[in-house]
């Protein structure tokens, strides 16, 4: 097994284990921390895919900012201690298993399918692109060129959500 493959399995395992930890812990703080570990493992997987830029952004935005805000809110509202069991009886458990089964089935179908030829890149093209434009340029160029309008629409949506949250939370400014 090559070194990359060993690292892949190690981080994939870590991502799965910590994701399980995130959804099974009773205490919100422990859950949030397991989620941070998951984000770390995912960032490592991005690095293995030669996408260092996305890996770093993942850490910067999710682990560094959003999860800190999560922790902040948990601590501010003093939710840090485990609450009562919130699984709603046999119907809830049954539905959960059903939905989980559907998800597994979908993943299994996905595993059978080969990726369409239109999204497969010729070998070495990513490396060449990064050589030409740099790691950041290879992402920034299409983002602010080809996809400028969708990008701006997304930022407007986020801004609207932000203004909405402020209006809802603070009636009298």
């Amino acid at each position, binding site marked *: 097994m090559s070194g990359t493959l060993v690292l892949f399995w190690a981080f994939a395992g870590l991502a799965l284990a910590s994701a399980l930890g995130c959804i099974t812990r009773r205490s919100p703080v422990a859950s949030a921390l397991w989620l941070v570990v998951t984000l770390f493992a995912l960032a490592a997987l991005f690095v293995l895919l030669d996408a*260092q830029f996305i890996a770093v952004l993942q850490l*910067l935005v999710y682990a*560094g900012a959003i999860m800190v*805000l999560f922790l*902040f809110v948990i*601590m501010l509202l003093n939710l840090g201690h485990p609450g009562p069991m919130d699984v709603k009886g046999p119907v809830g458990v049954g539905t959960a298993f059903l939905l989980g089964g559907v998800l597994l089935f979908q993943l299994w179908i996905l595993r059978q399918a080969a990726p369409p030829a239109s999204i497969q890149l010729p070998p070495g093209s990513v490396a060449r692109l990064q050589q030409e434009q740099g*790691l*950041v340029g290879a992402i920034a160029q299409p983002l602010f060129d080809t996809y400028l309008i969708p990008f701006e629409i997304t930022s407007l949506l986020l801004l609207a959500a932000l203004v909405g949250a402020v209006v809802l939370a603070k009636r009298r400014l």
Partner: protein
Amino acid sequence: MTFFLVSSIIKIIVVFTVIMVGVALLTLAERRICAWMQDRLGPNRVGPQGLFQPAADGLKNLLKEETLPAQADKVLFLLAPAMSFVPALLTFAVIPFATPLPTPWGDVDMVVANLPVGFLYILAFGSLGVYGIVLAGWASNNKYSLLGGLRASAQMISYEIAMGMSTVAVLLLAGNVTLSEVVARQAQSIWFVFPLSLAYFIFIVAAFAETNRLPFDLPEAEGELIAGYHTEYSAMKFSMFYIAEYSNMVTASALMTTLFFGGWDIPFTTWDNTPPWTVLKTVATLAAFCLKVSCFLFLYIWVRWTLPRFRYDQLMALGWKVMLPLALGYLTVIATALWILHAVLGWAYDTRFGLALFGLNVLLAIPLFFVLDRGHIVAGSMAGERA
């Protein structure tokens, strides 16, 4: 491959050791300088000029009793001190500290990991340092600790934005996110502190807030919160928070050096930044880097023993109402100026380019400092002269 692994491992061990010893000496420097500023002697009994004081303190901290509060979350309580100082050390990995060292097996880059996204890596790991403090505050199960942790998270997030924005200006000028390229750009022409003086001003204020040093050490604020997030900690765990604070200072100083003061560059000569690389060049540039970092460390200590602490609302108001709009506005101005100089006038980046931007910065700085000052120091001293 083997050579890369071996040289990397050696670099990791050497850099780690140097930072740890540096941190130990820094605690002594802080106490001696503080004593000097307050006209007393400071610790000077253990070894010549008190040089072995950090070792004595370390030994004392190892032997003292470890306490664990009854209602504390045990795992997180133990984990928090480590989590606060690991990011500070990891950040140092991408900072270039000298010119490449020639060895019989090839040149060795004097940086632990020359990442292509080095700069963003620093921002990412810089933002993780807050976890240690927040978790220490929460896991202690003490209301003062919790308040300290809450303050730390709010403060770090607020100032991170201003810090990131101020460094975007550096990236615009360098045209690259690799730190060795940023240093090379400055070595060829002029240090970025001149063309980007205001960005440096924003960065240094944000860096003081990010490292929780006075005048922004609200998370511990002993006057109101006892000792904030580390109230419940004792012995070596308490000491770890101090190690974390000082490692953060070292990293922040190294960052200021790298981003704004030319990194390992020796000014007024191009001898040091052109191949062939020699051992002498490596040593000389390393000395230049260490000297610059020490200056900033001294600045940290100097400011700590000079300025009183801010009030919490003042800190937040400064972050969101002054630093953030300032950084954003400055970024717009700099981007426009760069576009005019590059695209309209067709200048390449050289000393003339840097000096033109420096002129712009001076023009912007004069009204800015009059507004920020609000008639306290600049106008106040003028009024004093008239009287």
